[in-house]
């Protein structure tokens, strides 16, 4: 097995630039790794060796010809399967889209191709990104490389496990309520949900349009910064994408200075309800920041108490409408029931067979929340909570430059543990959801190992458009964590048994 795969993306990018390794070599090394471990981990729903190697070969040829290439050209990447790709099926983890090959590339995928990054494959997710464990994927769950009996987080468990098991140096995720950050937390990897609108949603199969955001997944803060710089930017195809550039994340990650920065600890997201080791690691991180010259302040966000309730009204409401298009008429699954196949019956039979239990649960919830007579009490009230949460953040950011909390209440749980209890499942996202409701950026980085030998992590939050602050503080913290623990967090993960 090639040692290349264990390196950080930034290092590999430099080796490619210097010609120390070819893209074909690097891409093949990762494909070999997948052949060896993905039977056990199940990060991928689709692996595309031909397309990846063809793209790698093209980059190598252009480099040899002396073309000026993108900084990350030749570096392979994995993409969450809710982003459209013209050369690979896109299922969003659902049976209703089984085998669907989109007619167009999502903007993010287009940018990856333009940068010359070979796409290794499409990663697993909870169906339509609804879940925290990948247990709701119609194609079976992904496993946590730290402990194959535990969940890799969700919905982006495919993207977190694919980088945590060294099958890809980088991956693309999407985050509606924590689907990038929670999987990063449970797999000891790094994940960022950029400011809403920083990255185009065009070609992202929508879960909840006002909350969804595409972002980078990596093993290292600088790597995430490099990837966010590739995928960010205004897109005329996405009206909600920000018109202005947010600057270079890579530069921010290289500053390595937090002196004088005010770090706000969110009172409501610590202490009670958080696993003791998670709290312990969190407090250690605060100490490190203080030692590095940052000022620690406490902030209060009283409306966070209602965040999950509001989120589970807004998300299902938007999802119920976004998922209406899956009706068998133009694409995807079509189930013809026995008897007279009227359009209503075909639509109903298709949706009955094509959607899984969590998707149905949320469609029903959302349809109800939007119904006339209930709108004000549910959807309307949830929007008010959303405004209150935004105000809480505004007040907090008046006192602090960056806010911090543990990324989630507890380290990775075991498969099946929360499957029958949706509320317990939803609570995993208690710390990540407020950022989506407010549209602000958030980053999850590992900050040590808990007593059960599973990774723990810290979440950083910044005001909208100030994503750079996350990378600046994140890189400093990461460096200090590695000094304290003696090596990269990911290197604490047990070696996976390799199948030859």
């Amino acid at each position, binding site marked *: 097995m090639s040692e290349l795969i264990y390196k950080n993306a930034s290092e590999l990018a430099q080796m490619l630039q210097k010609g120390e390794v070819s893209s074909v070599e690097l891409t093949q090394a990762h494909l070999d790794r997948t052949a060896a471990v993905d039977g056990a981990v199940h990060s991928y729903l689709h692996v595309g060796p031909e397309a990846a190697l063809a793209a790698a070969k093209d980059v190598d040829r252009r480099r040899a010809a002396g073309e000026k290439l993108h900084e990350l050209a030749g570096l392979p990447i994995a993409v969450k399967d*809710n982003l459209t790709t013209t050369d690979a099926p896109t299922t969003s983890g659902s049976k209703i889209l089984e085998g669907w090959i*989109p007619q167009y590339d999502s903007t993010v995928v287009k940018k990856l191709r333009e940068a010359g990054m070979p796409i290794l494959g499409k990663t697993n997710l909870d169906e339509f990104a609804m879940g925290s464990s990948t247990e709701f994927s119609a194609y079976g769950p992904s496993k946590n490389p730290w402990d194959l009996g535990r969940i890799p987080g969700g919905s982006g468990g495919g993207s977190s496990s694919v980088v945590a098991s060294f099958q890809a140096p980088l991956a693309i995720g999407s985050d509606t309520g924590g689907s990038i950050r929670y999987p990063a937390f449970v797999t000891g990897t790094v994940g960022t949900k950029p400011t809403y609108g920083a990255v185009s949603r065009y*070609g992202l199969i929508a879960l909840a349009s006002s909350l969804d955001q595409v972002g980078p997944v990596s093993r290292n803060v600088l790597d995430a910064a490099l990837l966010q710089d590739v995928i960010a930017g205004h897109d005329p195809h996405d009206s909600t994408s920000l018109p202005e550039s947010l600057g270079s994340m890579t530069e921010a990650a290289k500053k390595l200075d937090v002196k004088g920065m005010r770090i706000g600890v969110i009172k409501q997201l610590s202490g009670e309800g958080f696993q003791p080791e998670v709290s312990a690691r969190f407090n250690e991180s605060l100490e490190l920041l203080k030692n590095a010259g940052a000022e620690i302040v406490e902030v209060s966000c009283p409306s966070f108490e209602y965040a999950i309730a509001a989120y589970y009204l807004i998300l299902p409401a*938007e999802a*119920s409408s976004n998922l209406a298009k899956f009706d068998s008429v133009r694409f995807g699954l079509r189930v013809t029931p026995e008897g007279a196949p009227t359009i209503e019956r075909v639509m109903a039979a298709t949706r009955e067979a094509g959607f899984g239990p969590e998707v149905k649960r949320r469609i029903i919830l959302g349809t109800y929340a939007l119904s006339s007579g209930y709108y004000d009490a549910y959807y309307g009230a949830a929007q008010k909570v959303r405004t209150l949460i935004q105000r809480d953040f505004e007040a907090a950011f008046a006192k602090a430059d960056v806010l911090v909390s543990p990324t989630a209440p507890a380290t990775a749980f075991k498969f099946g543990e929360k499957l029958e209890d949706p509320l317990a499942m939803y609570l995993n996202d208690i710390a990540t959801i407020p950022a989506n409701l407010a549209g602000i950026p958030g980053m999850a980085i590992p900050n040590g190992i808990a007593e059960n030998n599973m990774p723990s992590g810290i979440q950083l939050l910044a005001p909208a458009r100030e994503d750079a602050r996350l990378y600046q503080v994140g890189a400093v913290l990461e460096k200090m964590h590695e000094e304290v623990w003696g090596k990269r967090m990911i290197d604490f993960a047990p070696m996976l048994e390799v199948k030859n």
Partner: protein
Amino acid sequence: MAKDELMNYEKALEQFEVVIGLEVHVELNTNTKMFCGCRNEFGDEPNTNVCPICIGLPGSLPAVNKRAVESSIKIGLALGCEIAPNGRFARKNYFYPDLAKNFQTSQYDEPIAFEGLLQVEVPSGNSFTVQIERAHMEEDAGKLTHVGGSTGRIQGAEYSLVDYNRAGVPLVEIVTKPVYGAGAEAPELAAAYVRSIREIVKGLGVSDAKMERGNVRCDANVSLRPHGQEKLGTRTETKNVNSLRSIERAVRYEIQRQAALLAKGTAIIQETRHWHEDKGATSSGRPKSDADDYRYFPEPDLVPVQPSKEWIEELRAGLPEKPADRRKRVQAEWGFADLEFRDVVNAGLMDQIEETVAAGAKPQAARKWWTGELARIANSQEKDVIDLEISGAYVAELANLVEAGKINDRLAREVLTFVLDGEGSPAEVVAKRGLEVVSDDGALIAAIEAALAKQPDVLDAIREGRMQAAGAVIGAVMQAMKGSADAGRVRELLIEMANK
């Protein structure tokens, strides 16, 4: 279709007060669709003007067509409406196979334009103020064709075809407040209102405004209440009435039908109804209650439309002259008597006559052709005269051919039928079919001599000053030459021969 009992119209009006409300959909003539770059073109091959956005592929997102917003604002301003500083789009959710996303992107509580007024004159010369509640932007649906079964309706069809070329075409829906007090003239007012809307949107250049192509579609709400009752009666909504005369007939029919039911003590069912031009009757559609639940909510994929004050004022300054001012001006320019002019206005022929005069016809000639022969042809085809496929330029050419003596009135009417059949311009038809009047003396003298052979006394009679005797010969010559003789020249020749 069960035959409805109808009450005598005058009797119905004695017993009930009529309240109408009109919803007019105007299809905009922008180059591209409302939310994507597809061509907005009528009559192309099915499903050729489509893309991931207008067929609602997963991941696709809408982006607002600025020109459509501009057209909508112009319509709002022309109707005297306020323009919303923050016009939001909303999703109207319902499942139907012509609706690609199974929701229509429309506007709900924040339409682009609201609170306007339109002064409408009916044929009697009475004038009514119609209050406009709102004008909002939305997208059109695709077109369904039901194949098999006799009615062309979905019931009994073997299968149905969907053409998404029309899906996403920009529409402006103009909704009136309830219109009271039109009494017996309610049907005429409904038609005159729609005619005014057509004039306005055509004058603005924002729509082709052809009703037979569905560029302008009208839904007519009708309810009755006993005179003196404050509470509005139950209304019916007759959908997609596709010509001005149908609107008038449909409203009249609903008044008579509802009156008969109410007089018997039968309640009116709140429902949509379909107008059948051939049967001159409406039939029951689907029940429509005020609680129809479309689960409207703000469209999260689009940012609100926020037209600047400067832009609105710029558009206001560029509006064409007000219809009333224009009427005054053109009547004076054309020198039409009041009654002549009212006929023109009632037939909605101002644009046509203006175009014809601009192409070189004398105003009176233009008026005679449009309100005379062309109106007669339209009537015989049960069409509105403005829907005839003939341009003002062709009518001018025809009038000028008559004026120049190239053809006479009878020949001109013949030429016209060929022009309407699409054989080309009047001059081309005259040339191709040899329809020019014969003023060649040789041919005429031969015909006169043949006629005189049968009526030898005529020359004597002329010499004696009895000119009416010439008529018989002229008639015979015309008959012999199938109407193409130049009657004036025949008369001259006859006089010459008599005086030799």
